[in-house]
């Protein structure tokens, strides 16, 4: 009996195996194995592992000098090894086939159907153009309505603050540490940064550059008579071109051949003539540097004698409308 069962199983098994499916047709062409390339890939994966392990090691190793550099090196090399392994796999271990495919086609029938769909859907409208215009109008209005809250982002129509500066007659000039400038300590051949006393400094109307020339060298316009007591001149430190701080002072070491003393902005090299009231000598700035009239009080301290000769900061459409306000 046992034998019989065994025989049946065997026969059934054979019978079942007989209609054996053929091996499916290959989708990817075959190629010869390449053990050397495999070895290289193994080596690269090994190296990547070592480099990757080095990353946490360097990370926790406090005493190591140049930790950033070693971290970058370890991580970079680990990634580079994996990259190399991928490329070896691509070039040597997998089959590189050349396939062809049709470029995409256009679908004129579908295009026409879409057009027809839209057209026919609108059949029932009698005043199509009017409806479209009304709809577009409503859409535009709604769009504007939805943009309205954006006006809260900033004082969009409030231009007067652009003319405001903290300077007015009598305000003392102080240095970065808050010390009052004395007229006598302003020397020729260098420049000083000054701020208004007791005022917010982080605004474009605040900072000044103060320089001293020989009174005989001054060529200020007549209207600015007395603005530079003892040859001391004060200008806004903010360039009228693009709003950078004017951080360079060009002082000729040999006046007969070298260019005029000038204030220079390091951003785009707008160059302003200090002797004649801040006019533009070179560079892109389109209007002169605003000058601040100075006076020396009886104690010898430098004070503003008024506000600037023009609006401070980079130019805008209203910059010439009126002067700065205190």
């Amino acid at each position, binding site marked *: 009996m046992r034998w019989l069962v065994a025989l049946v199983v065997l026969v059934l098994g054979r019978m079942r195996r007989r209609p054996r499916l053929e091996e499916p047709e290959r989708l990817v062409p075959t190629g010869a194995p390449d053990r050397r390339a495999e070895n290289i890939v193994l080596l690269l994966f090994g190296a990547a592992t070592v480099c990757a392990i080095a990353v946490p090691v360097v990370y926790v190793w406090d005493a190591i000098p140049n930790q950033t550099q070693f971290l970058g090196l370890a991580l970079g090399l680990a990634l580079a090894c994996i990259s190399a392994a991928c490329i070896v796999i691509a070039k040597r271990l997998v089959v590189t086939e050349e396939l062809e495919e049709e470029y995409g086609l256009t679908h004129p029938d579908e295009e026409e159907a879409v057009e027809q769909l839209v057209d026919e859907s609108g059949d029932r409208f009698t005043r199509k153009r009017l409806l479209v215009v009304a709809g577009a109008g409503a859409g535009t209005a709604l769009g504007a309505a939805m943009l309205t809250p954006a006006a809260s982002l900033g004082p969009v129509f409030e231009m007067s603050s652009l003319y405001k500066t903290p300077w007015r007659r009598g305000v003392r000039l102080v240095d970065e540490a808050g010390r009052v400038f004395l007229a006598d300590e302003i020397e020729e051949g260098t420049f000083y940064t000054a701020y208004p006393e007791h005022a917010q400094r982080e605004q474009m109307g605040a900072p000044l550059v103060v320089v001293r020339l020989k009174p005989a060298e001054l060529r200020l316009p007549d209207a600015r008579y007395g603005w530079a007591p003892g040859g001391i001149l004060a200008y806004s430190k903010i360039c009228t071109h693009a709003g950078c701080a004017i951080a360079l002072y060009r002082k000729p070491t040999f006046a007969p051949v070298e260019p005029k003393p000038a204030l220079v902005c390091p951003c785009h*090299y707008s160059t302003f003539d200090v002797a004649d009231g801040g006019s533009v000598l*070179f560079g892109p700035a389109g209007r002169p540097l605003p000058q601040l009239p100075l006076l020396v009080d009886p104690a010898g301290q430098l004070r503003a004698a008024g506000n600037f000769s023009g609006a401070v900061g980079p*130019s805008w459409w209203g910059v010439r409308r009126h002067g700065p306000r205190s």
Partner: protein
Amino acid sequence: MIRRTVRYLDERSGGAPFLRKALRYVFPDHWSFLLGEVALYSFVILVLTGIYLTLFFKPSLATVAYHGDYLPLRGREMSEAYQSTVHISLNVRAGLLIRQTHHWAADVFVAAIVVHLLRIFFTGAFRKPRDLTYYVGLLMLILALLEGYLGYSLVDDLLSGMGLAIGYAVLMSIPFVGANLAQLVWNGPFPGGNDFESRMYIAHVLLLPIAIGMLIALHLTLVASRHHTQFLSRRATERKVVGMPTFPAYAPRSLGLAFAVAAVLFLMGGLIQINPIWQWGPYHVAEATNGAQPDWYLGWLIGALRLVPSFDVTVGNYTLVPNAFWGGAAFPLLVFLVLFLWPTLERRVTGDYAFHNLLDRPRDAPWRTALGVAFFTWIFIVFLAGAADRMFVLFGLSYEGQVWAFRVLVWVLPVVALLVTKRVCNELLRGEVVEVRRKLVEAEPAA
């Protein structure tokens, strides 16, 4: 195992046919086709490193006094934004590596996009049916420039403050509405309200990256749906694309490139210092430094701002166009306008409205190549002019002399480039005709 995974997915998405097609999608092979991928992988690194940085960075202009380890800054008043960036750089372990990698990745990202754009332009890959893809790419370039600018502006170090002042001035300079827009964006006159920092931040870490990400998806979808362009070869024609399939041939290649890009970026991030902000110090309105240069991709704008001669366009006391508008706004607008209009213009002028799946070699379209070389030369000269102050420091060339020379060269050199390129293209083509004739003549006796 593979079968079970695929079955699982197919039962739930019906995606097996798509997957099979995707695995056999054909990629034509040419090194220049990888430039876009370099940009893509740089973007991935940017997102990953950027996420890490957000975990430490504080987008706040609240003033604090520095009490960290870096002695030269001890006791200095600075914003929390700047302080936290110094902290990331000097105190967070691996922070400097990630920050520098992020910065380098941004530079590489834009560079890859620009070189990719040049490849697309000079091979005529922007022609129908891929002009839409090209416009999406241009849009991404604009967003990438803005994203990079915001990225280094966020830090509130001296350099970023100077950059923001210039950005503010350029916005102010727009005729009729500039000052209003600037007040709106900055919430008041420069340096603006404290919430300006958080506005930049949300734009830099959320709005722009998502916009760029979505445009990337659109760009790739369009590329895939119309298939890749290719150069003419024995088998490649206007009708048939020839190349290797995604799987198994192309995937490991592309993966290799991805890891290579990551490797280079992390190596640069670790080994090559970039923007050491702790040396610049915090920004104050009254401070600026000489020799300041922005990241390379803004060099063309600083060059343009520097080259424009001194003038404001005024009507009475109404300033119609302040000077900064020309270099900072009009110039880039013109450049992008030309780039956006080029496919249309070329179609109109040549009357060629056909589909183009085969690429031109630059010589095949002498006029396009010559005009393109002239156009990019124009931009490049402006870019070089932005480095005139460095050339003064390095070579002692007078700055003012250089600027005058550049003001002339910027108009002369493009014309020279145009004529030379046209000639070279024509000569190359003629050489090929001669070659073909000679082969025909040599073949004749045999026939």
